[in-house]
């Protein structure tokens, strides 16, 4: 792994709208989400003007990430969800990933690894099958910025 490659913060990236194939592809349906610089704007672009409840979801991250190039982020829900979106505020754009939850998945248990340029806050927003929105945020420290955004 050439971690050096990831070091340092570069210039703000120019966002492009990528082409896509699937009807479920958030990149095609909600292109603004991926260009939003702030978490709030990204959430608004994805779900509209919502008032999420601060419950139902859990984020599992290390308190201090030694390597910002690969921070494991565990995502869990106690409620049944239609979709789930992951944001952070340390990189030039806020959105990291949006998951479409299959209808037969009762409680979500996902994990992925993300890049963060510096310490920041990770936000998870879920759209429940009951029509409500759920949200959770967690701060974490990044010891070594691993992402150029």
């Amino acid at each position, binding site marked *: 792994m050439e971690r050096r490659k990831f070091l340092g913060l*570069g210039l703000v990236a120019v966002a492009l709208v990528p082409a896509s*194939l699937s009807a479920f592809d958030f990149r095609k349906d909600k292109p603004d989400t991926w260009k939003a610089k702030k978490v709030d704007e990204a959430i608004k672009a994805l779900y509209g003007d919502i008032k999420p409840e601060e419950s139902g979801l859990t984020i599992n991250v290390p308190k201090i990430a030694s390597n910002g190039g690969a921070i494991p982020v565990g995502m869990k829900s106690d409620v049944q969800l239609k979709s789930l979106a992951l944001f952070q505020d340390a990189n030039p754009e806020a959105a990291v*990933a949006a998951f479409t939850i299959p209808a037969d998945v009762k409680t979500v248990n996902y994990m992925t690894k993300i*890049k963060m340029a510096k310490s920041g806050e990770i936000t998870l927003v879920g759209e429940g099958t009951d029509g409500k929105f759920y949200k959770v945020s967690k701060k974490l420290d990044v010891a070594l910025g691993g*992402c150029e955004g």
Partner: protein
Amino acid sequence: MANMKIKAKVKGDTLKCKVQMKHDMITYNIAKKKGVDANFITYVTGKIGDRIVFEASTSQFLSKNPIIKFEAPSEGVKKGDELTMYWKDLSGKEVTEAKKVKGLK
């Protein structure tokens, strides 16, 4: 060449999957510095037969060679079934790979 490492296992009523995708995940900033095109995985699905067990739209901020773990109900998964993972990146490259689900008698 293997573009993915896939592990899928049924444990009780849960299907546990772990996938590592081989991809550089070049963000726009790295691309600018190095003078190459940004390229990262934008869309991932996991299927068993026709049933979608995982679907995600992803951005440049997943780590290099991103790992995804997910769980789905194991109901209906039979011995010999395969987990088919598919991803697509910004350059339009598409990769599909399948692996047999373990843990079934």
